[in-house]
C-alpha cells in the first residue's frame, strides 16, 4: 500500500515536473515579448528571474541540509 503510494507520488511528481517545465519555458519566453523598465542591468538578462529562483531554491535546500547536519539533535535534547 505504502509502496503503491510512493510510486503514485513519484508518477505525480514527474508529471508535475514536466508541466512545470513547460510553464517555465513559456514564462521564460515571455521575456522576449514585452519591455521591462528595470533598476538593475542584470534584470535585462534573459531568464534572470527564473534562473535566480532556481539557483536560490537549490542553494537554500543544500544550505538547509548542511545546517541539519550541523545542528540537528534528538527531540529530547533539552530535556536530558
Amino acid at each position, binding site marked *: 500500500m505504502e509502496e503503491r503510494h510512493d510510486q503514485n507520488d513519484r508518477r505525480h511528481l514527474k508529471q508535475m515536473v514536466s508541466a512545470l517545465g513547460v510553464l*517555465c519555458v513559456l514564462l521564460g519566453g515571455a521575456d522576449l515579448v514585452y519591455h521591462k523598465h528595470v*533598476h538593475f542591468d542584470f534584470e535585462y538578462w534573459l531568464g534572470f528571474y527564473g534562473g535566480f529562483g532556481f539557483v*536560490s*531554491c*537549490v542553494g537554500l535546500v543544500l544550505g538547509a541540509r548542511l545546517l541539519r547536519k550541523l545542528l540537528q539533535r534528538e*527531540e529530547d535534547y*533539552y530535556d536530558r
Partner: protein
Amino acid sequence: MIDSLPPGVLLIVGAGVLPMLSGRWRSVWTLLLPVASGLQLWGAFPAGTSRTFELLGYPLTPVQADPLSLVWGYIFHLAAFLCALYAWHVRDLVQQVAALIYVGAALGAIFAGDLITLFVYWELTAISSVFLIWASRSERSYRAGMRYLIMQVGSGVILLAGILFHYRDTGSLAFGDAFHKILAPLPLASDGQFLGLNSPGTALIFLAFGIKAAFPLLHNWLQDAYPEATVTGTVYLSVFTTKLAVYALARGFPGTGILIGIGATMAVFPLFYAAIANDLRRAMTYILNNQLGFMVTGVGLANFARHPEVAQLAINGTASHAFAHILYEGLLFMALGAVLYRSGTIRGSQLGGLYRSMPWTAAFCLVGAASISAFPLFSGFVTKSMIVSAAAEQHQTAVWLALMFASVGVFLVAGIRIPAVTFLGPQRGPRLAEAPGWMLAAMASSAAFCLLLGIWPAPLYALLPYPVEYKPYTAAHVITQLQLLAFTGLAFATLKLRGLYPVERAAINLDSDWFFRKPLPAVVGGLYRWGVALRAGVSRVGEAVLVEALTWVKKHCGPPGLLGRSWSTGGMVIWAAMLLGAYLILYYL
C-alpha cells in the same frame, strides 16, 4: 464618554467582565468587544486626534491617532475579531482574559504618543501574552513561557532605561510626534524629528524594540515560545507582539541605516531553519521572522531626509505589508492550529495526506500560502513588492538580491513545503474530521481578505500614510514574479525527485537559545556547585580550627589546666614574697 477612553482600554476593561459570564456568553463577549472597540476607533479617533494630560508634571499623550497608527489600529481590530472567532470553542477563562488584555495593551501601545505610555503597554503585552503560552499547561510550555517572559520583560526594562537616558538628554518624552505633525501629503521631516539612533538613550530604546521585533540573535524567544502556546494562543501571538515592534521602529527609527542590514539578514537566515524544522508551527514562526525582516528593511529604507519620495514608498510598503501579513500569517497559523486541534500533533514527520480529511482547511491554507508567496492576485503581491521596489529605487543591490532570495525561500517553505507535508502524500494515522465550523469561518474570512486585498488593493492603499503611486499590476512585475515562483517550484520538484530535499525527521535544530539553555545553565550550575563545595570546605576547615582552639583553651584554662586549676594560699604567699624581694633588689640596683 466613550471617546475619553483611549483605544484598547475598552478591551482591557472588558476583560474584567469575562469572569462574570459563563460558557458561550464569554465567547460572544470576546467577539463583541473588538467590534465595539473598532467602532470606537473609527468614530472617535480620526487622524489628527490626540489627547494629552499631565501626570506628576510629565506631559502624557495616551492617544495619538494619525495615518500611521491608524493602519495598525484597524488591522489589529480586524485580527482580534478573527482570532476571537477562531477561538470560539475556548472555555478557558485564563486564555480568554489574557487574550483580551493582550490585544488591548497592543492597541494602547500603538496609539501611545509618549514613551512612558508606550512603556506601560509594552510591559502589559508581555505579561498578558505569556498566559497564552502557559495555558498549554505542560512543563515544556511553562519553561518556554518563562524564557519568553524574561526576554519580553527584559525588553521593557531596557526600554525604560533608554527612556530615562533620553529624557535626561532631551527633556522630551514625545514618541514619533514628527509623524503626527508631518503626515501631510509631502513630509519634509529631517532626521532630528524622529528618535533616531543618536545617543545611549535612543540606542537602548532601539535595542528594546529590536528584541520584540526578533532581530537576528535576539530572535529566538519567538521560535522557542510561540509553538508551545495553545492552538488559539499561537494565532493571537503571531499577530500582535512583533507587529507592535515593527510599528515602534517605523515610528521612532525610520531611515536608520543599520535597519536595512538587520532586516535583510532577518529575511534570509530564518529560511534555512524553516526549511527543516519538524514542528510545523515552529517552521512557520521562522517564516514569521523572515517576514518581519521585509518590514524592518522597509523601515530602514525610509530615509526622509535623503530620499523623501522613496521613504514614503518604503513606509507605505512596511505598513501595507504588516497589514497583509497579519491576515495571511494568521490564516496559516489558523490552518496549522486546526490540524493540531484535530490530529493532536503538528510534527511534519507524523502528518500527511490530510487534504482528504480536511479539504477546506487545506484550501484555506493554500490561499494563505499563495498570499505569503506573493502570487499575483493574492495580498503579498501588492504589498511586499513596495518594499522590494524601495530597495531597487535606492540601488541597494545586495539588499534587493537578499529580498528576492527571501521571496524564493518563503515560497519554498510556506508555499510548498508546509502545505505539502501536511496535506499531500500518504495519510498517516486515522482519518480525521474537518476543522469545526467556527475555525473554518475564521479561516474563510481571512482567506477572503487575502484575495480581496490582492485583487483590489485600492482600499488598502487609501488607508496608507502617504499617497500611493505604486502600480503592482504591470506586465513586468507579474511575469517576473511568476518566473521566480515557477522556477522555484521546478527546483523543488527536481530536488524532491532526486531525493535531495531533506525528508521529515523527528528532531529539533539548535538555535541561539542553545546558549542560554545548555552552556549558561552548565556554567551557572558549575558555579553553584563550586560555591557549595567552597562553602563546605571553608566551614570544614573553620570547624577544625575552632575545635583545635577550643581544645587548647580547654587544656590550659580548664579545671586541670595551668591557668584554670586552683592554687594553695601558701604557694601564693611565697610567690608574692618572691616578687616583693625581686622588686627590692631591683630598686637598690
